């Protein structure tokens, strides 16, 4: 059964098969109980759940703000709130969705939970730091929410100078809130990179690393390199307001366009912090639900790194009309096109994975199909916007709004929900209701398109973003969009209902309901307290569906002081060859 590959760095180890236990008595959820055991936990899975609870709350909060925005835009003049309130709504919507939901969602929830399991580790490299980053996140998040009561903030999530240094409200407070959130993100990045480098189980070579881990690896690189720059930029915004340091404020001799360079140097890569982990989820789900080896493993893995790298060189495409030199515009436009190529490559690889597969249209896969369409539209309109000339007319219009919602919601949120459904059995030990899952997936897809497709047209017609009043000709588009937003809202509420309901009366999940080959499915559901009581050994890649399941359940025969617990099925020792 061992690979016959002859190579100098192959060596033999004694392994046994550790079949996942069904209906195990202890799991990570019931191993300890009480609020204290949660708030002081160092278990990456529990920390993932803590993040899940927090981000879900902020997601729905940000969503309600979005509904407020859409309701206000039902009529061209004031509908139910004033202009200043509206400006605060879209600012908070942006800040909350980006910093409190999109950035942490996939890495901090799904990544925290599954990264160590996918590489056969018992935890991340620094569990205390992991818990600390959740607390830092909560402090930053509470600070951000507190801004509402401290006078609000109306700068837009981009904090453009000199508006942000002159307007009233709690801008200083907010900039320090986001500064703190940045550190949470940095610490998670450090933890993940170290974990991937140092904690992989025997046999998990770089070539057998699941693509979800590759995507988190690329994301973490961006996080650790870009976030410090955001942190210092926002600290400077705070200083600008407190001390009038004058670096960005033209009234004191500074340069406001310099702020935009600083800001986008982080915030463009941040787009990829949000979307790249989503790519990882897509790779996992497409392969599992097509029951087929992933097509172009290295192309997908390396394109994530390529995206991470190029993402640092394209920030200027947010500034095509800011008055920066034509030459700079040319270079940034060129590099922006380049970042489209690895993204396109991923798309084709996923489609090729489905080709000749055995496709099962369960809820997670429906989300991924939705992702394919929405992300294609989002990506291609990105190509349109990368074309400098086209961007001139479309910049800061609803076309851009629609574009980034297609990428962020259509891409990232669809992948996130797909991932949440996919891994839900492992996280909760329960199966969700498939029918309800499918209906809500369709509703989300429908609602999303009704909301944002009209915005492309409106934007091309010239409707600027961040407008409280608008000219009458756009009213029809706005009303369709508002109706869509409510459909979308109902869809998300149904997702929430379905998952929460499964906790109470969902069918008990088996260890591996999707017959996946990935390592996280080779343990009990819900996951055991320390993931593995043995040291797992991998002899095949995580997408080798042509190999028998038993091959994916191997572990070192000799345990490191931990004897396998009672009830674990152990087959006779075998000897396998594996790469060191």
């Amino acid at each position, binding site marked *: 059964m061992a690979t016959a590959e002859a190579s100098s760095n192959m060596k033999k180890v004694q392994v046994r098969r550790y079949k996942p236990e069904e209906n195990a008595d202890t799991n990570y959820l019931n191993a300890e109980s009480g609020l204290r055991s949660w708030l002081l936990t160092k278990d990456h899975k529990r920390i993932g759940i803590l993040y899940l609870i927090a981000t879900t709350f902020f997601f729905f909060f940000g969503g309600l703000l979005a509904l407020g925005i859409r309701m206000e835009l039902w009529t061209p003049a004031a509908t139910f709130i004033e202009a200043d309130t509206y400006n605060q709504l879209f600012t908070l919507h942006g800040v909350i969705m980006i910093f409190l939901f999109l950035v942490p969602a996939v890495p901090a929830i799904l990544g925290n939970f599954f990264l160590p399991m996918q590489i056969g580790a018992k935890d991340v490299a620094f569990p205390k730091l992991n818990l600390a980053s959740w607390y830092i996140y909560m402090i930053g998040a509470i600070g951000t929410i507190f801004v509402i009561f401290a006078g609000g903030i109306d700068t837009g999530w981009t904090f453009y100078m000199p508006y942000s240094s002159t307007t009233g409200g709690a801008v200083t407070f907010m900039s320090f809130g986001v500064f703190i959130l940045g550190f949470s993100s940095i610490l998670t990045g450090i933890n993940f990179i170290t974990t991937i480098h140092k904690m992989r189980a025997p046999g998990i070579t770089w070539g057998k690393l699941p693509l979800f881990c590759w995507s988190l690896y690329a994301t973490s690189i961006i996080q650790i390199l870009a976030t410090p720059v955001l942190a*210092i930029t926002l600290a400077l915004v705070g200083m600008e307001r407190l001390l009038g340091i004058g670096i960005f404020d033209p009234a004191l001799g500074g340069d406001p366009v310099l702020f935009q360079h600083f800001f986008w140097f982080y915030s463009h890569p941040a787009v990829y912090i949000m979307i790249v982990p989503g790519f990882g989820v897509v790779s996992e789900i497409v392969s599992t639900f097509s029951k087929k080896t992933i097509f172009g493993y290295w192309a997908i893995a390396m394109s994530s790194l390529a995206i991470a790298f190029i993402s640092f060189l394209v920030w200027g495409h947010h500034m095509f009309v800011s008055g920066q030199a034509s030459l700079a515009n040319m270079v940034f436009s060129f590099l922006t096109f380049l970042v489209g190529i690895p993204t396109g490559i991923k798309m084709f690889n996923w489609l090729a994975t489905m080709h000749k597969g055995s496709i099962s249209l369960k809820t997670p896969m429906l989300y991924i199909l939705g992702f394919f369409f929405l992300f294609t539209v989002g990506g291609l309109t990105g190509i349109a916007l990368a074309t400098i000339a086209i961007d001139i007319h479309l910049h800061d219009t609803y076309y851009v709004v629609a574009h980034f919602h297609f990428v962020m919601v259509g891409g990232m949120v669809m992948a996130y929900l797909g991932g949440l459904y996919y891994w839900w059995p492992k996280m909760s030990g329960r199966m969700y209701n498939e029918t309800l899952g499918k209906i809500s997936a369709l509703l989300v897809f429908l609602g999303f398109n009704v909301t944002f497709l009209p915005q492309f047209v409106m934007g091309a017609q010239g409707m600027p973003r961040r407008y409280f009043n608008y000219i009458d000709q756009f009213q029809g588009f706005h009303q369709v969009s508002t109706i869509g937003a409510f459909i979308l809202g109902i869809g998300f509420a149904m997702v929430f209902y379905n998952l929460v309901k499964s906790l109470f009366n969902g069918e008990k999940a088996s260890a591996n309901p999707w017959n996946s080959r990935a390592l996280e499915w080779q343990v009990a559901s819900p996951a055991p307290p320390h993931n593995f009581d043995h040291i797992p050994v991998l002899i095949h890649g995580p997408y080798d569906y042509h190999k028998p399941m038993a091959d994916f359940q191997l572990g070192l025969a000799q345990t490191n002081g931990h004897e396998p617990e009672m009830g674990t099925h152990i087959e006779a020792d075998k000897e396998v060859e594996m790469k060191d």
Partner: protein
Amino acid sequence: MANKTSTHAHPKHLYHHFIDSEQQFSAAKMGMWIFLGTEILMFGGLFAAYIIYRAWYPELFTMASHELNTIWGAVNTVVLIGSSLTVAMAIKSAQLNQKRNIAINLGITIALACVFMVIKYFEYTHKFHLGIYPGEFYTFDGIEHPKANIFFSLYYLMTGLHGIHVTIGIGLMSWLLWRSLKGDYDSEYYTPVEITGLYWHLVDIIWIFLFPLFYLID
């Protein structure tokens, strides 16, 4: 990484999720290196602002630099380099299992770091006395340049952020000192000393960039 089982007994400092001490040590070290990378990027933002303004107003930087006291700047440079040396000696002592020397070297490092901060304090108060405050509070009229306030904003921001790092370093080192006095570190386990040392070298290196960039412009 494979098959490193039961070669060591399970020592007290080893966390359950690591296979052995070696894995734990190399993970901690790598984590610190990555963190230092983020620190460089964070200071990098300020260095970028510095470079841009210096390119725009080279004459301002030459003029304003004369207001800074080169001698005290140089003394501080020597003090920090000295402390980097003593922290390296603390690590060496740990490797050689000289438990008492760990504490002594850490003590000297803390003292040097405090000397640095005291000198910095006198430099700042002297400037405040002249009316050289950051940004809009700037009232000094000894420099004939409309953007002199921005030079000093950068000066205070960069040396201030560096000062915060020195202060954090003093805190970390005091904690190490306390634990080394308890005898927690030896040649088997000295990871915290090693990675704090790495951090301290970074703080030192940043100063080595700050010193010529502000004090030695001509």
